[in-house]
């Protein structure tokens, strides 16, 4: 401490200065705090994204529960027992018409019959098919009647709910008189459901009659003109018998059905996460099951990666290890340039060129060994996957190249010194040493592809259904819809605050969580890799 007892001369070493302070902070502290605040923005944005996805999406689960509850209370679930029964029958008739198609093909192509002749030969079969499909008609009529009743009940309930909201709003605005004027009829499900339930004996009657007819029909199957298809006919018989065997169970279920049975809370989650239908704005019942979208997203991404991983990693190995310096200088900027292609332009290219081109290629006869070829849907998983590969390749390439670059030179030199060839060094030393980097590159590529919107929206075909996996790999030629695509497509058209609107936010939330998960995995793998090197 200096003793400032003799102040006339300024102290020789005046390093104690009081700087301007505001709220205890100097100017420099304030600037630092300002920059620190900006660094926080990333954290804040991430938090805000979470908050707003939850804020808009969370109500979905409560609303969906109500949705499911009404489905039960208004008897829609009850009617759906019969609906499923008729739908299964429709599937059988579809099988029949498939058999007819194959026969026709056999007759015209192999036996060189004219179309008329072939049709004539198929006449007994047609008669049978017609009878077969007609058996369901009485049941269908009954169902139509019940459908009407249930829908009416549901509408009534919806109107009541709307009124309640209206009155609530009026009350909130202080308009008491108007509020009391809003008439609300309580819906008494028990009495309203009586006619529906009273139809049970009629149903049993119809169903049994239906069953009897089918049994008699099965005994009188026509002789097929083409013997090759006999096994298919047998299969139909077997399917029909199985179908018939299920009838008593349906009856029992309908008898046991209770409209009052509560819908457990977990069902709103499971019906979302494992629901196999995404059906909106339907006259009957809306379903919000993410499964078809999730599967669509994953399938498209997998196809994209199937192309992008070999190409991206291969190109990275080539550029990093094999290519000359001049080639490197040429290829790297080019791939960087490809990464700048806007996805909507790629999507447009898919619609305008690639979709057609791939379909044309699929119809070339010597390519017919490729699973799924030939196909007729222009826009499908394959088209979208190919274009997404164009997006994923630069990401994978750049990151994988970085990983290869990070392998210490000493490894390579040591390997050469032991007499390994270039290829051996690359495959046994360099690639394994950078493997975790490459894997995380692939994961980040996957993240990029799963989150991509425009390409799948334009090129994936937008059919909301779980594709048919029974044909093996040819599943890639089917159209699908994706999580990103559905948000982009439906967000603009939904009513704010409706269950559909909230469902889209929940899909967004799933997407968000998925991307965080992929990122997390990639980072984890990279971190492991750092430790192993050094």
């Amino acid at each position, binding site marked *: *401490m*200096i003793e400032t007892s003799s102040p006339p001369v300024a*102290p*020789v*070493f*005046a*390093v*104690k*200065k009081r*700087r301007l302070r505001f709220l205890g902070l100097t100017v420099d502290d304030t600037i630092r705090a300002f920059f620190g605040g900006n660094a926080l923005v990333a954290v804040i944005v991430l938090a805000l994204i979470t908050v707003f996805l939850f804020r808009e999406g969370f109500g979905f689960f409560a609303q969906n529960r109500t949705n499911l509850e009404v489905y039960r209370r208004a008897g829609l679930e009850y009617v759906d027992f019969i609906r499923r029964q008729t739908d299964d029958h429709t599937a059988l008739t579809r099988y029949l018409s498939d058999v007819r198609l194959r026969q026709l093909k056999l007759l015209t192509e192999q036996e060189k019959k004219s179309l008329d002749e072939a049709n004539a030969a198929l006449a007994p079969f047609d008669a049978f098919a017609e009878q077969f499909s007609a058996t369901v008609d009485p049941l269908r009529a009954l169902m139509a009647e019940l459908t009407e009743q249930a829908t009416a009940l549901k509408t009534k309930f919806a109107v009541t709910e709307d009124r309640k909201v209206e009155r609530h709003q009026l009350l909130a605005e202080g308009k008491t008189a108007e509020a009391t004027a809003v008439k609300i009829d309580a819906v008494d499900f028990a009495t309203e459901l009586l006619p529906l339930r009273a139809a049970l004996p009629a149903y049993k009657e119809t169903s049994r009659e239906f069953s009897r007819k089918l049994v008699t029909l099965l005994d009188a199957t026509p002789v097929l003109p083409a013997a090759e298809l006999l096994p298919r006919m047998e299969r139909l018989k077997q399917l029909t018998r199985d179908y018939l065997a299920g009838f008593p169970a349906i009856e029992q279920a309908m008898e046991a059905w209770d409209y009052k049975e509560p819908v457990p809370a977990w069902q709103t989650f499971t019906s979302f996460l494992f629901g196999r239908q995404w059906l909106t704005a339907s006259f009957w019942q809306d379903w919000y099951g993410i499964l078809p979208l999730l599967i669509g997203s994953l399938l498209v991404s997998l196809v994209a990666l199937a192309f992008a991983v070999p190409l991206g990693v291969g190109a990275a190995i080539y550029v990093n290890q094999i290519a000359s310096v001049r080639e490197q200088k040429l290829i790297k900027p080019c791939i960087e340039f490809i990464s700048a292609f806007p996805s909507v332009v790629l999507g447009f290219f898919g619609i305008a060129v690639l979709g057609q081109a791939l379909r044309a290629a699929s119809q070339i006869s010597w390519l017919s060994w490729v699973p799924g070829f030939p196909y007729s849907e222009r826009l499908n998983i394959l088209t979208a996957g190919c274009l997404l590969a164009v997006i994923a390749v630069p990401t994978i390439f750049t990151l994988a190249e970085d990983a290869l670059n990070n392998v210490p030179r000493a490894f390579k030199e040591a390997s050469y010194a032991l007499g390994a060839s270039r290829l051996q060094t690359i495959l046994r030393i360099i690639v394994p040493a950078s493997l975790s980097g490459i894997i995380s590159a692939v994961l980040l590529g996957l993240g990029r592809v799963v989150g991509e919107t425009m390409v799948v929206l334009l090129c994936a075909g937008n059919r909301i259904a779980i594709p048919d996996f029974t044909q093996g790999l040819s599943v890639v030629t089917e159209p699908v819809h994706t999580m990103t695509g559905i948000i982009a497509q439906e967000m603009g058209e939904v009513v704010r605050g409706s269950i559909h609107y909230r469902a889209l936010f929940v899909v967004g939330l799933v997407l968000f969580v998925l991307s965080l998960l992929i990122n997390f995995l990639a980072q984890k793998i990279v971190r492991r890799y750092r430790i192993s090197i050094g």
Partner: protein
Amino acid sequence: MVIATPEIMETRRAAPASASPPSAGKDTIVDIDHVDFFYGATQALNDITLAIEAKKVTAFIGPSGCGKSTLLRCLNRMNDLIEGTRVARGTIKIHGVDIYEPDVDVIELRKRVGMVFQKSNPFPKSIYENITYGLRLQGRSDKAKLDEVVEKSLRGAALWDEVKDRLHASGLGLSGGQQQRLCIARAIAVEPQIILMDEPCSALDPVATAKVEELIQELRSRFTIIIVTHNMQQAARCSDRTAFFYLGRLIEYADTRNIFTNPANPQTEAYVSGRFG
């Protein structure tokens, strides 16, 4: 190499006591008192006590890694910039002010304690701007005054004649030795009281080194200079007092003449005569 600890302890107590009593001398400007210094968990300085006299050149010598730079950077608190560093014990006083007191403003401190680095680091600006940088920071923008300071500092750094025609050319266009002298000129432009030099000549050829040494001789009348060097001859030629460090401890501190002709400590002798390790 293993050193017998008692011997060192003895030397440490003996040497400074014989040279100058701590914080007593009238012309003591820097007074380092029992300082321990840590980089995180590793201790770089161990119980250093040293009094540096005003208007003299003091040289720090010692083998690599013994803590010379660390001590030097303690004097203008450049070590504050490195994470996890702390002066764990002891005080460093300049003009009687403990520079590690919380109310000391490092900015004011650094204005008064200038520094020249091992690797010359002129800013990629013109020579003129390099020199006026410090003054402009203090808010001086009076052109005439700045011109005057530029000339004075460049003359002070013996660089004026070489660059007077290209004051507005980039400082990076100078030769290595000129760059280092530019850095010295930049440091003296803000009129510090003490100039710290960390191996200022290590990257220079003998001719440039000679010039810088000459410069140091000229500057000694106006500034207190502390110089770290690996070059024994340089220390012998241009310093008044020399401190020898080893493994984070001060081994011997005395008049340069004594250190080089008649060292009290055998290690010092071994080091200065090049028979070390």
